[in-house]
Structure formats: structure tokens, C-alpha cells
């Protein structure tokens, strides 16, 4: 079975133009990354800011062309640097961004947010566009009445549902999610993660999920790629990575993730008490 999306030695360079004082230079944001995601699975890309994880997400979502390497969708090579993607290709891959406050146009009604991809990429008649948008609102846990409302009338979690609905309007096979829950509260985060899991089951979606939060990754991912300074330092199934992280950077990430287990808290409280008692009053 071919992978829905595959990358071979993906390289991305950013050129920083020179000024009066600084010379022009080239930053290599991705240094040759390989990956493949089979249908219906989730690849989580983990790393901190500046690691190149969002750069990779933008390449997979066909927003930026890579400087080198090969990107394959359903086994066919795609090079958006040479040929602009047509609507069939655009329909295959959609993206959900981190900040639902920034990714929705405040002056656009939700109905227009959802039907716009259809207007641009298909010749669906207006009545059908509306029906499909209303059905999609229900699918993501909102109501058809929300069609005529504006983004400011919704909470952060609801907005992220709208952003997910918009991404699904073209029936994509691959969804690129760039930190989709990191701007949300814990309990809302749980709702959105549940929604993503349900949609994946129902629509056989493939996810590329970018995150820096290992507890979220453990919940949603099948495969994990840890990226640092533009290099994939560790790659494997979720269970492999979580059971036995081998790269020092992965271990560092694990150590930084807050521990909520009662035994760990007991130890921390005891350590703190001892430090206080040891100190001269």
C-alpha cells in the first residue's frame, strides 16, 4: 500500500537578504527529512520553536515549495515550485492552523468561511454548497443556525471546530494540523482532540499533527518524528518513542513535560520541605 504522503530528503533554505550592516546569508531550516504516513494514520511532528516543524508542515500542506528533495502524494511526485497545484490537488491536502482567532476572517460569516473552498475549487451550485456547509457544521459539533454568524460570536474551541470544518469541506484525504490545540484550555483541548479522533475514524483521514506537547502526542499519534534544528533526530512508532527515547533531545523534551502523577508530586513536596527545614531560619 502506498503512503498518502511521503517525503524524501526534504530540504528547505531561507534566504536572509543582506542590508547595510549584515551580509546576505542562507538558513537551512530543514536538512533532509524523510517520512511516510499510511492511510488513516497520524504522524506527529514534535519539536520546539525554531526546530523547523512548521516549515515542514507548510511544505506538506503545499503552501511552500521545498528547496530540495521530493514530496509524494498518493505515490505521485508533486512539485509546486514548477507547477501550481490544481484544484484536485488542493482538495487532497488541507490545513488547520494554531490560532483560531487569527485564522478566521472577522468580517466573514461562518457560512462563507465554509463555502469559500467550494467556490474556489469546485463548481458546486449555491444551494448544495449551503447544504454541505450546514451538514459539516453538525459533523464538527456545531449547529446549522451558526451559518450566518460571525467568528467573534464563538469561543476559541468553537472557532477551532470551524477551522476544522473549513479544512474538511473539500473532502481531503490528508489534514495538516499545526498545533491545533495549543491555544486552547485543557478541557476544550480534550473536546477538540476527541473530535479529531472521531473524524479520523469516520472519514479515514490521514493526519500530520505538529505539536510540542508530548502528552497530546501520546494521545493522538501512531508515528512520531522528533525534529531539532531541522533534522529528524528520532523517528518511530508512538510506543517505541515513549517507551525508550534514545536521542538526548527527545529525553530533554520528556524531562521538561510536567508530571502529574501523585508519586512525583509527593516527592517534589517532600524535597521542598526538606530544603526549607535545612535552611537556617
Amino acid at each position: 500500500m502506498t503512503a498518502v504522503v511521503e517525503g524524501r530528503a526534504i530540504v528547505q533554505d531561507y534566504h536572509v537578504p543582506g542590508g547595510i550592516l549584515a551580509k546576505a546569508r542562507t538558513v537551512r531550516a530543514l536538512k533532509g527529512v524523510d517520512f511516510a504516513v499510511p492511510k488513516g494514520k497520524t504522524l506527529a511532528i514534535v519539536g520546539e520553536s525554531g526546530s523547523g516543524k512548521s516549515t515542514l508542515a507548510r511544505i506538506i500542506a503545499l503552501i511552500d515549495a521545498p528547496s530540495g528533495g521530493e514530496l509524494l502524494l498518493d505515490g505521485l511526485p508533486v512539485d509546486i515550485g514548477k507547477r501550481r497545484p490544481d484544484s484536485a490537488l488542493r482538495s487532497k491536502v488541507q490545513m488547520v492552523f494554531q490560532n483560531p482567532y487569527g485564522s478566521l476572517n472577522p468580517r466573514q460569516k461562518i457560512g462563507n468561511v465554509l463555502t469559500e473552498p467550494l467556490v474556489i475549487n469546485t463548481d458546486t451550485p449555491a444551494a448544495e454548497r449551503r447544504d454541505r456547509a450546514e451538514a459539516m457544521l453538525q459533523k464538527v459539533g456545531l449547529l446549522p443556525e451558526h451559518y450566518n454568524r460571525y467568528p467573534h460570536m464563538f469561543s476559541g474551541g468553537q472557532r477551532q471546530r470551524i477551522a476544522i470544518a473549513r479544512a474538511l469541506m473539500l473532502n481531503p484525504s490528508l489534514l495538516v494540523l499545526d498545533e491545533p490545540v495549543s491555544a486552547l484550555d485543557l478541557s476544550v483541548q480534550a473536546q477538540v482532540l476527541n473530535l479529531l479522533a472521531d473524524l479520523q475514524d469516520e472519514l479515514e483521514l490521514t493526519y500530520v499533527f505538529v505539536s510540542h506537547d508530548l502528552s497530546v502526542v501520546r494521545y493522538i499519534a501512531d508515528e512520531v518524528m522528533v525534529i531539532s534544528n531541522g533534522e529528524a533526530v528520532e523517528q518511530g512508532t508512538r510506543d517505541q518513542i515513549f517507551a525508550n527515547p534514545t536521542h538526548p533531545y527527545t529525553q530533554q523534551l520528556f524531562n521538561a513535560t510536567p508530571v502529574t502523577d501523585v508519586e512525583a508530586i509527593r516527592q517534589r513536596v517532600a524535597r521542598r520541605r526538606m530544603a526549607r527545614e535545612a535552611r537556617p531560619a
Partner: protein
Amino acid sequence: MPLLNIRNLTVRFATATGSFTAVDGIDVSVDRGEVLAIVGESGSGKSVSMLAVMGLLPDTATITADEMTYDGQDIRDMSPALRRKLIGREITMIFQEPIASLNPSFTVGFQIEEVLRLNLRMSRGQARARALELFQAVGIPAPEEKLKAYPHQMSGGQCQRVMIAIALASNPRLLIADEPTTALDVTIQKQILDLLLKLQDDYDMALILITHDMGVVAETADRVVVQYKGKKMEEADVLSLFEAPKHAYTRALLSALPEHAEGDRLPTVSDYFEQEASR
């Protein structure tokens, strides 16, 4: 006697559609040298109650309390001049967005020296020396050069360190940190939390940490207040809260942590309320 003691605090906002109660009868107290975490979702009023203490709420807010004392002094009807002596010196605060909290047009060195000169009446030379000392204390690499940097030339984690340095400038006895690590990566979050705890211990400050993240609570707090829709749900020391949460809402918050997922679904807060209701 607790350092900060608030009893029955209520904050109402006058809105176009009538009055809205953001904080509804909250009691908060914090002792010297203690780390108190206030946890809740957005809209729970966790920031509003602390902004009320700082006097940072807009004029549309009506604040009432049976008691609101800092070190035995009543802050409710304090004169503005006295209040200014307290706020920003004895009690300081840092916010969620470190980059937005700093003025982009001035160097970070200027901004910290400004606090030292205006608040503590230091001379330029004294302020420069103390600023350098503070930058070293909060672990900013190459502090001398960084004093001349503008906020956009620094990372989010470094800007938060600058904010912490500014907040510490006057040797406060109470530091209020409002979601100090929410905008930061896990590795940087860890560094900032460790720094806050170390400084809290070194300076023997009281620290109030406002957060929605139970993970942050588990790693930092001595005592925890759980807030929901402006009301206090539960108050406990951190160990009992995680070991045996008393209130349904606390249990709901804890079960929404992704690491507590059982099977394929994450329990959400609303699931929990339904479950409790059907009992």
C-alpha cells in the same frame, strides 16, 4: 497572619446588556514563602480577582470585598499615593505574553532601568549596575549585551526572563504570575518555572501562579485554589488535590489531561458533569 488576605471578593462588570459577575465571593489568602496556584478555564475569573488586587481593572468594574488586606494594611480604601507605593514595589505581576508586555520601541535595559529610577529613585549608574545584577539573577546569557537589545531581538523565553527581572527589581514580597508560560514551549516552560521557584525560595517571596494547566500546578504549587465561573470549587494542598480531588469539577479537570486518557476517548469536563448529574 497571611501576607495577602481576601475575603468574599466580588467583581462585577457593567456591560451593555446589564451587570456581569466575573468573580463571585472568592476567598484567597497567601502566606510568606508560599506558592499558591489558582487554576481554572478561561472565563473562570482567575485573572480578574488578581487584577482587582493590583487595581488594574477598568472603570466598568465594581469591586466589593469584606476584607482585602496586604500585610495587615487594608487595600480597599487606600489613597492612590499609598497604593502606588505598594503595587509595583511590594506586589508585582508578570503576564502571559512576554513580548506584548514589553515596549517594542525601547531597549529592555532602558525599560528595567526606568523602573529602578522611578520606583526606587536610583541614579542612572546605580540603575545600570542593578539591572545587570538582575539580568544575571534571572539567567539571561551575555547580560551586558542584552541590556542594549530590543524586545524583538530576543526569544519569548528571554523576554519572559526580562519581565521577571523587572518584577523582581524592587525586591517584592508577593509576585503574581498570570499564565507565565502559556505562550512558551515545554522546554522553555520548564526553565521559567524552575527559575520562578528558585527566585521564590531565594527571596522568600509569596508566589501566586494563575494557570489553566494542571501540569504546571503539579510541578510548582504548595496549595491550590480551583475556580469555575467566578466561584471557588475547591481549595487544598497540592498532594491531596491530585490524590483525592473532592469536587467534581476538579476531577473533571484532572481527567481531561491527555495522559489520563482511558481507551480512545478523552473525558471532557461536560462528560463529567453529565455523569455527576445522572448519579
